[in-house]
């Protein structure tokens, strides 16, 4: 006899247990004979391996035993029949379960895919684990003054020079220039100057051109595919010359694939950074005092970014310490992992609006809540109704069912219901998907999640849910002792009563938290909107000023436009400014101080340049001194401060500031007036210290106030004036109130989503409560009859039947308060102006839930108590 390894003996045992007995001897014999022959010819390992492979060949139906004591197919058929009959008999509960599960799954899907999108930005970029963005924080007199996404210019280059850990860097700088091709102007939404190795560091595919070459030379430009198509149509763009601001010629060297929506990048045009150096000088490569540059560094794969970041403070001191000390200023660099930028970063100079980590996680939790509430409904209803299945279980056991078989049966039922719900929700998802995404998506392009990870995860989640929600009821149901059940002694299901109570409490806990959340979000949004902005934003059309290469040309064209507009009856008021309300000032200047102060006392301010109509146009209030007035002449040396700036520069009284001289980048300015604080950005933000400078013709924005009435006509008359003044320069306009409100957009969306899903959660929870109440009440109908006969009043009976539920809801409200207090406090931290978390905010949702729950329960109990006792008692 040949000796075989242990593994092969296991194989033998397996074959023995599943193969037809009359074939078994020859199968094993033949396998072993082959093995013995192979042993001598090819060696033990390969013989063993081939033995194993060959025995797998015997796992075919021809060889398999017909199972003698159970017939799988018939069993499932029986399970199926039992399931369908049971569902038919209790249509009401089946429907509640089905609707609840379907809503839960649908809601879960939407929330999960939304959160998944938010959490998986920039996944198309290779090497993303090693790429970090350097975010710059600036301090003045020890206080954090500005947080830049696009920080100081030289940090990337110098990091690469000084730290061996930094392998490479790329810098980017936003461009504000207009472009034209053969006298046609094109509006470009996101033009940037990009370092020459941009396409090597970031794996954005080039349709035309070579990664390492396209941005190498000064005065070269790479276009996105869609922009290239817009400008050149079907012609090949490479080699063509486009003009920037009518004067600078850029050669197109390549075309890159349009960027996916899920990226913190958004470019349609990239100039080579060297072009910017040619315009602005070497300083833009090396300066530490010039902000507005995005710097990305590539770290060596073995480097721990935290360890590297620990070296920064010392490095900053050695590089820039003296300069900073002079102004009593400080700097700080933060490394932001590339793939998390979308979630964690929301600072000055982002490329496009970023997401919000807290909100994403909040939504994720809400989605899971709705899903869990639905599963809990299933568990509660199934276990509560166990009594109605008890006889069936008893009979099955008497007939010889094993416990495992019963568990299998009930698991099958749960699987069946989950599966139907899954199918229903799949249909719902397909139907609602476009609507939902129009609602939450901020772009036209919104497609199904494209990664298998998401779908497998989703299916995995549903399987886990099905097992969790199916296993416990199956366990309870199969646990009945046939003898007790069939004797008829089995009165009511006390089994798992506490668990059921716990689960109901959890459902309502989640519901109360969600409702409270919705209420707080709603209140906060109302609060924000009811804030006095201190600025008029209604009925204003904003047009971006054209860009000209020289200020003198701009001044002439600007004057022409002003004259035209003054004669235009559709326009009531007009002003030009470097920024508009709803938009950050853009110009952020440091080193500003009173002439009497030292450099160490200087600070950073936001600067807006405007003509003398700005204050009046936007209804700003001058609370001290005077406004700009062109008739004074020499206004260029005067500035206005806002209240916050007055406080920052160190005056206690507004009047002290008037006619004080300030030092601003080498020039001296005279403070002539103080503007009352107003909301330049949204009320979400604090009042920034702002300085207004006088520029009679600034580049930035024209604001035009138009009368109510025909908007279309007003716009076209303005455009006519525009065309006469500026020729074919792009007329790019928008309405200020829409623009201003865009700042709230994410909050409004969050509020709506929050409200929607909270509503669903409460609905599903109430459905569960409703059916649970009706079932429990129906069990007690005899008790109610007896009590009625003995003289109990309807009110007493109602109290008796409702009490238990109310107690549970009371408990969940009590638990919910600290949790929602903490959650809402966290959320409110996002806002500079926020509501206080008063008692009322918790009381209203709690009352709402109590009322809804009582109504739900009462509807059922009232019916039971009104029944004539003769009816419930007559069959005893």
């Amino acid at each position, binding site marked *: *006899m*040949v000796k075989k390894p242990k593994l092969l003996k296991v194989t033998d045992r397996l074959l023995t247990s599943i193969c037809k007995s009359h*074939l078994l*001897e*020859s*199968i*094993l*014999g*033949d*396998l*072993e*004979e*082959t093995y*013995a*022959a192979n042993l001598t010819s090819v060696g033990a390992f390969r013989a063993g391996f081939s033995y194993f492979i*060959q*025995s797998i*060949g*015997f796992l*075919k139906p*021809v*060889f398999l035993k017909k199972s003698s004591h159970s017939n799988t197919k018939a069993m499932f058929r029986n399970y199926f029949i039992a399931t369908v009959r049971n569902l038919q008999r209790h249509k009401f509960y089946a429907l509640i379960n089905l609707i609840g599960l379907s809503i839960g799954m649908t809601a879960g899907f939407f929330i999960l895919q939304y959160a998944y999108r938010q959490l998986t930005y920039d996944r198309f970029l290779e090497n993303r684990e090693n790429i970090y963005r350097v975010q710059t924080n600036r301090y003045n007199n020890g206080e954090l003054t500005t947080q830049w996404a696009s920080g100081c210019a030289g940090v990337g280059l110098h990091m690469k020079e000084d730290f061996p850990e930094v392998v490479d860097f790329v810098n980017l700088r936003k461009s504000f220039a207009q472009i034209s091709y053969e006298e046609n102007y094109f509006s470009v939404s996101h033009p940037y100057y990009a370092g020459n190795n941009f396409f090597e560091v970031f794996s954005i595919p080039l349709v035309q051109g070579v990664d390492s070459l396209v941005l190498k030379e000064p005065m070269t430009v790479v276009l996105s595919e869609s922009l290239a198509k817009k400008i050149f149509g079907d012609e090949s763009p490479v080699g063509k010359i486009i003009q920037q601001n009518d004067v600078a010629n850029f050669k197109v060297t390549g075309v890159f694939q349009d960027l996916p929506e899920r990226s913190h990048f958004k470019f349609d045009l990239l100039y080579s950074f060297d072009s910017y150096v040619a315009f602005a000088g070497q300083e833009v490569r090396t300066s530490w005092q010039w902000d507005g540059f995005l710097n990305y560094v590539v770290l060596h794969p073995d480097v721990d970014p935290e360890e590297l970041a620990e070296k920064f403070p010392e490095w900053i001191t050695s590089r820039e310490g003296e300069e900073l000390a002079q102004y009593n200023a400080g700097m700080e660099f933060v490394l932001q992992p590339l793939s998390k930028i979308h979630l964690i970063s929301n600072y000055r100079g982002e490329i496009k609006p970023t997401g919000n980590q807290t909100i994403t996680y909040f939504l994720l939790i809400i989605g899971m809540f709705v899903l869990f509430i639905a599963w809990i409904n299933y568990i509660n209803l199934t276990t509560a109704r166990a009594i109605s299945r008890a006889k069936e279980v008893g009979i099955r056991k008497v007939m010889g069912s094993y416990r495992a078989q019963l568990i299998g049966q009930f698991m099958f039922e749960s699987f069946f219901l989950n599966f139907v719900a899954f199918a229903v929700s799949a249909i719902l998802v397909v139907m609602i998907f476009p609507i939902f995404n129009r609602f939450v998506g901020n772009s036209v392009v919104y497609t199904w999640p494209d990664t298998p990870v998401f779908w497998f995860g989703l299916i995995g989640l549903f399987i886990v849910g099905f097992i969790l929600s199916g296993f416990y009821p199956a366990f309870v149901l199969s646990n009945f002792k046939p003898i007790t059940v069939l004797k008829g002694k089995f009165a009511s299901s006390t089994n798992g009563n506490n668990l059921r109570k716990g689960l109901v409490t959890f459902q309502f806990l989640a519901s109360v938290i969600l409702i409270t959340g919705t209420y707080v979000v709603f209140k906060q949004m109302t609060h924000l909107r009811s804030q006095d902005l201190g600025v008029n934003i209604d009925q204003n059309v904003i047009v971006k000023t054209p860009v000209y290469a020289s200020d003198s040309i701009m001044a002439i064209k600007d004057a022409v436009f002003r004259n035209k507009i003054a004669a235009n009856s559709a326009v009531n008021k007009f002003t030009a400014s470097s920024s508009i309300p709803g938009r950050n000032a853009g110009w952020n200047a440091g080193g500003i101080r009173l002439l009497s102060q030292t450099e160490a006392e200087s600070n950073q301010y936001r600067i807006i340049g405007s003509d003398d109509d700005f204050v009046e146009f936007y209804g700003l209030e001058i609370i001290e001194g005077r406004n700009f007035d062109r008739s004074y002449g020499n206004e260029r040396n005067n500035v206005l401060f806002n209240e916050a700036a007055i406080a920052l520069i160190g005056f206690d009284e507004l009047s002290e500031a008037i006619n004080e001289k300030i030092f601003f980048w080498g020039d001296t300015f005279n403070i002539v007036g103080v503007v009352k604080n107003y909301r330049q950005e949204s009320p979400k933000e604090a009042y920034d210290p702002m300085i207004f400078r006088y520029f009679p013709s600034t580049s930035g924005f024209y604001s035009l106030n138009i009368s109510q009435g025909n908007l279309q006509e007003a716009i076209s008359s303005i455009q006519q004036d525009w065309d006469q003044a500026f020729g074919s320069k792009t007329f790019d306009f928008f309405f200020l109130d829409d623009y201003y409100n865009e700042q709230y957009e994410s909050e409004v969306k969050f509020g709506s989503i929050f409200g929607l899903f909270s509503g669903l959660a409460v609905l599903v929870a109430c459905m569960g409560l409703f059916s649970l109440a009706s079932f429990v009440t129906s069990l007690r109908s005899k008790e109610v009859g007896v009590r009625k006969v003995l003289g109990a009043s309807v009110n007493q009976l109602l109290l008796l039947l409702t009490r238990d539920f109310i107690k549970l809801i009371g408990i969940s409200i009590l638990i919910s308060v600290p949790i929602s207090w903490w959650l809402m406090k966290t959320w409110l931290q996002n806002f500079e102006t926020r509501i206080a978390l008063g008692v009322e905010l918790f009381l209203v949702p709690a009352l709402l839930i109590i009322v809804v729950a009582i109504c739900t329960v009462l509807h059922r109990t009232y019916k039971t108590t009104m029944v004539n006792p003769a009816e419930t008692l007559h069959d005893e």
Partner: protein
Amino acid sequence: MKGTNLGELEEIVMLSIAILYDEAYGIAIQQEIKKRCNRSITISTVHSVTSRLEEKGFLNARYDGATPERGGRRKRLFRLTKSGQVALSSIREIRNGMWDAIPKLAFGNG
């Protein structure tokens, strides 16, 4: 019901069994096929073909001839049944008839 038609592999297996006469069991059949047709088939394939043929009533099986390299297990020896023999010879006749019906020119060897 499965037809009494023979597949090509079934035919080969039956022919091998006929050749081996009293020594036809799994491995012997496998080796015979290897030797004559230069075809490697797995042992489980042999087994599933013989099971199928048994079902069709073309084979008889008996256990005999244990050897030590088989772990003392007996061989399952096959023999053609009457109807098996009939099936084989009818295939042969059909084929022969068809061969004969081919016009000489068709093979182009004159």
